[in-house]
């Protein structure tokens, strides 16, 4: 039993759909999550919003309290926004835990909304090429987010003697999950390893399908105290542990280039807090947005031998029915990247898996899930463990 639980969630499918406005998504996910929790809306006492990248108007609106006002929540004590890139949702959940365990709130809403497809493509490319890259020391040399991750991938292949096909098999595994997920941009669109290898090149060795596909989406979590969850919820999803490690803001000066040490520290801390070992984890949900992270995570946690992560994926161990189900949401390459919102989608998936609501991607008997998120160009690894 943890101190807090997810007692409700709601998510819209990840799509490229500029007609579906930010407020359409906000209304659907917030009302849907409260209904899913089965609670009175006026039991909600706090709003902690995930910052939507590249959307300054929405950032201002959520930061300055328009959401609780628009929806008429009567008993909200505070409203904030959290921006830590793709790690934002984890930080929102942790802040909710602090608000709850300090006695300030019993129920906190964590919403996230992203619509990127109504932003001019050139502006989006510029934003995501520049935002995580150092403006002085990386960007003037043509470094992009994809390029930085490609450089890490090249080095990973060099040091582990992994082939481009073995790395491509990671994306195949992620698309395999995504193809069965009706919330995925790639629902019913699987990609074989050969398909991945045949896609157009972006930055060697990463092909287009191995890079982020920006999309629109959103979700909302209802986080509650232990007492409230036990009283009001039949199937709470408990937070059991948390670990964090900061790797550095700029890839060129980062010592832990493959994020392995970050995964080892943060996951180890979370496991210790939950009094579990890695063998107790039924599903590993890894939000790293790029394929090498799926390999690094496995190596860091001793799930496979050092340097064998890509080959572990290539062997099929991380797919549905494999011995180590990994990233059942498909990560950004199997789901579509909703700005800082893929981590929100991951949390919804954790709740689905532990409640047995994951449909064709359900991992039978899943009781413990470890999830990691990362922000910026990989500045941190934040691990949380969840159980039912």
């Amino acid at each position, binding site marked *: 039993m943890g101190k807090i639980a997810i007692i409700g969630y709601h998510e819209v499918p990840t799509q490229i759909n500029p007609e579906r406005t930010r407020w359409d998504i906000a209304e659907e996910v917030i009302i849907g999550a409260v209904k899913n929790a089965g609670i009175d809306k006026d039991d909600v006492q706090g709003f902690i919003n995930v910052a939507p990248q590249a959307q300054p108007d929405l950032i201002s609106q959520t930061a300055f309290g328009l959401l609780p006002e628009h929806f008429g929540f009567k008993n909200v004590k505070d409203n904030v926004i959290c921006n830590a890139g793709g790690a934002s949702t984890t930080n929102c959940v942790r802040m909710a835990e602090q608000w709850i365990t300090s006695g300030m709130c019993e129920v906190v809403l964590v919403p996230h909304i992203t619509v990127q497809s109504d932003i001019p493509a050139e502006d989006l490319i510029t934003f995501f090429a520049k935002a995580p890259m150092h403006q*002085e*020391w990386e960007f003037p040399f043509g470094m992009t987010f994809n390029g930085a991750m490609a450089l890490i991938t*090249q*080095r990973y292949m060099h040091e582990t003697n992994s082939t481009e096909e073995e790395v491509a098999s990671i994306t195949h595994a992620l698309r395999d999950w995504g193809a069965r997920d009706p919330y995925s941009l790639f629902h019913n669109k699987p990609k074989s390893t050969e398909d991945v290898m045949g896609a157009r090149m972006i*930055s060697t060795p990463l092909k287009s399908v191995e890079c982020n596909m920006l999309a629109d989406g959103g979700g909302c979590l209802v986080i509650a105290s232990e007492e409230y969850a036990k009283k009001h919820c039949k199937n709470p999803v408990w937070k059991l542990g948390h670990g964090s490690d900061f790797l550095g803001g700029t890839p060129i000066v980062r010592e832990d280039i493959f994020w392995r040490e970050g995964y080892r520290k943060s996951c180890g801390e979370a496991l210790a807090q939950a009094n579990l070992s890695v063998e107790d984890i039924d599903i590993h949900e890894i939000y790293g947005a790029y394929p090498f992270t799926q390999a690094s995570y496995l190596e860091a946690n001793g799930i496979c031998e050092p340097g064998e992560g890509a080959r572990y994926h290539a062997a099929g161990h991380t797919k549905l029915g494999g011995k180590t189900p990994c990233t059942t949401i498909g990560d950004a390459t199997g789901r579509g990247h909703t700005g800082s919102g893929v981590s929100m989608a991951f949390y919804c998936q954790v709740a689905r898996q532990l409640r047995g609501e994951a449909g064709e991607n359900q991992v039978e008997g899943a009781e413990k899930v470890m999830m990691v998120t990362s922000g910026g160009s990989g500045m941190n690894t934040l691990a949380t463990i969840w159980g039912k």
Partner: protein
Amino acid sequence: MSDMKRPLPAISPESKPFWDAVQQDKLLVQHCNSCDTNIFYPRRICPECWSKDLGWVEAKGTGTIYSITTTYLGTTSEFTKELPIHVAYIDLDEGIRMASNVVGVGAESAKIGDRVEVEFVKANGDFKLPLFHLIEE
């Protein structure tokens, strides 16, 4: 290289000596006089000991490719005419890593572990960037 229209680096007071030197075909590395550490990128304080007693050492200009990628798509418009572009992490012999480009003869087949040497290339008007070409040793 003459038609480059690169975005210019956002130069800060602490990095100005680096860029001024580049315009004079010199590569400098920031150095902490207190703990004898070479620092990249330049900062206001030493990230190791927080000393403000910082100076500069002139780099030999040679290094090794730590990683390299060829980018075909996805850059901002300033780079479009240059694509494909060879973006690399270069480990300088002074013990620091910087991002740059590999240019010139053989750049398209450059690989991890190759030795490189700096050259100073006009990248936007008269402003120069430190780029690298392959060398044989």
